[in-house]
């Protein structure tokens, strides 16, 4: 028997699940598109993961969840650790590269910069109002140009001379690209130009005022894009490392945090077991709470007939009602 720790990262675009062993070695990783249905993604991902897990004889001793869907996946699986993405990404990167000073993480809707000092997060920033340069924007541009997103980076790497594209905002970038394309610039050079402009946008908006020092690690789904990596190296003037499992680093980090907590506290995991998630039918519903003029949209998630969680209420009336019930029991 092997002890395993499960890490789940539900983002806007992808749902990632990993299983690691006691030595932080990856047993299995699953990368799925969330496609607007995180519950389905978690169930599918978990089913695939359990298959490998049982072949290898793994028992799950701890569960960690992260990403914007961390509370949802925590309810579905029963989590020991629920952590924000910043901490999760930093933990995974610092384990792999103990001397890392800067982490660039670009996902579907968020981009982040994390500055570490002695392996501990010292400063961080996330994109605030603009999602230019994130995975969703690249996805959209690739489909407009009729290029498979998987080819995007490879095509960019072929470029000899990048075209200058306005990087201030996604809308400006798009119209600039169309303009350059109508003038007849080669596709490769336009794509590479877009990569460079996105890097400038990232450094100005997210990396604003932060001192970027090497070693730099680039992770998140967008790190697959060789063009962006090259653009970062060119503009920063230093080499940028992309870890082997760049796309699931958040999940790895939170699995490590779960392991740390379980080994330290020697508690029994909150994990609800395979049957809970695979055999139940999960349903969500929402209603407008009429308790005050805020009219919050309250979401309720149920397994068969049992209410698992409420959220969305600003005053926490619904959320608290559930905890009161469980306290009473």
């Amino acid at each position, binding site marked *: 028997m092997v002890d395993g720790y499960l890490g789940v990262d539900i983002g806007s675009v992808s749902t990632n699940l990993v299983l690691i062993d006691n030595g932080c070695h990856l047993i299995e990783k699953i990368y799925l598109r969330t496609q607007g249905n995180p519950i389905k993604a978690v169930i599918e991902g978990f089913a695939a993961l359990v298959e490998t897990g049982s072949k290898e004889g793994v028992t799950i001793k701890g569960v960690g969840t992260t990403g914007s869907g961390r509370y949802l996946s925590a309810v579905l699986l029963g989590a020991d650790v629920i952590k*924000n993405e*910043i*901490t999760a990404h930093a933990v995974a990167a610092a384990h792999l590269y103990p001397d890392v000073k800067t982490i660039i993480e670009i996902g579907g809707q968020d981009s982040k910069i994390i500055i570490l000092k002695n392996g501990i997060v010292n*400063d961080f920033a*996330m994109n605030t*109002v603009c999602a230019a340069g994130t995975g969703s924007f690249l996805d959209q541009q690739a489909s407009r140009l009729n290029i498979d997103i998987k080819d995007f980076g490879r095509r960019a790497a072929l470029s000899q001379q990048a075209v200058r594209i306005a990087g201030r905002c996604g809308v400006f970038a798009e119209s600039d690209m169309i303009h350059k394309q109508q003038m007849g610039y080669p596709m490769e050079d336009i794509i590479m130009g877009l990569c460079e402009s996105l890097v400038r946008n990232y450094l100005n908006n997210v990396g604003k*005022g*932060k001192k970027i020092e090497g070693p730099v690690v680039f992770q998140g789904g967008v790190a697959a894009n060789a063009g962006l990596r090259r653009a970062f190296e060119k503009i920063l003037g230093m080499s940028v490392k992309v870890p082997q499992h760049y796309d699931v680093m958040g999940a790895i980090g939170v699995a490590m945090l779960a392991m740390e907590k379980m080994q330290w506290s020697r508690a029994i995991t909150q994990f609800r077991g395979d049957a809970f998630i695979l055999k139940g039918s999960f349903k969500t519903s929402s209603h407008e709470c009429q308790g005050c003029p805020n009219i919050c949209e309250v979401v309720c998630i149920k397994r068969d007939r049992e209410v698992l969680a409420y959220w969305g209420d600003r005053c926490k009336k619904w959320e608290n009602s559930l905890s009161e019930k469980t306290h009473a029991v």
Partner: protein
Amino acid sequence: MKITFPHMGNMHIAIKALMAGLKLEVIPPPPVSKRTFELGIRHSPEFACMPLKINLGNFIEALENGADTIVMAGGWGPCRFGYYAQVERDILEGLGYQFKMIVLEAPDSKAYDLIKQIKALGENVSFWEAVKAIKYGWSKLNALELLERQFDYYLPRARDKHMVEKIYDDAVVTIDRAGSKTEADEATGQAIKKMSRVDLKAGLPLKIGIVGEIYTMFEPAANYNIYRLLGRMDVQVSRSAYVTEWINDHIMGGYVKKSSRKNLIACAKPYLNCEVGGHGLETVGNTVHFARMKHDGIIQIGPLTCMPEIVAQSIIPSISEKEGVPCMTLWFDELSGTAGLSTRLEAFVDMVHRKKLSTNNQIKEA
């Protein structure tokens, strides 16, 4: 005359008391809700900041409820706020509302001028009745602030956060209904007694200072109740401004109580040596002040596009480095999802916590 005014935190309670003393009928705007935002956003210039939009929503809802006179603060600060009363009047007139607008200007030199302005509002009140009304409103404001400070102390320490929030919310309603200073003070005292009996967690909570633009700091609807969100994460919050201080410095000309402004201006040097409009200088000064008061972290908040806060934001990284305190800036706008906000807050609190642990360990090892 049926008077209304914009919401700013608990200030409506004090204004209601003041107006009652002036023998005026008051129709406060309904609490800020989704509808307030919608109305404000629909009728405001897109690039204006959140405070203007919420003000406007407040006014429309109050006028719908029968108010016919709006009292609004003016000012000659170089921030856009000084001009908001005029812009709001224009927009409302354009929408076809009939109303009178009274703009309270900060007095240049004498508190007497302000009392005269307030007296002029009232119908047939003597000068001394006006002074009494001001005192009454002021006493409620003080009671509320005392309550707020205790709330900020107990929320992070309490095991049952819901309980502390309920005690606070109930006390605010009681203070609002109180008919005299004694009643208001008694309600505060009772609430504090109740809070002190709540079960507390062991250990000291993290301490985080909040600095930034004044309206965003006062109005929970404009900051998504950031004080409570942090309190629920076991963080003790230090507010850099209280309504009484703001009124004292900006409307009463610093007459009522000792001003902390001089200290702030001294703290801001050498990072910022002059006024940059709005609350920019205070934000820089407060950041330095909190850092020196050994806070574990500082969060700057403001409405998106706020110029003075943008200036302060660009100065904060150097304060953070020299004074050795983690800082983060959050901009608020009309986004209704709080997921992004809580991720950032959680990440910041987590970082501050881990940093504190590691420095404590280093001290022990040494």
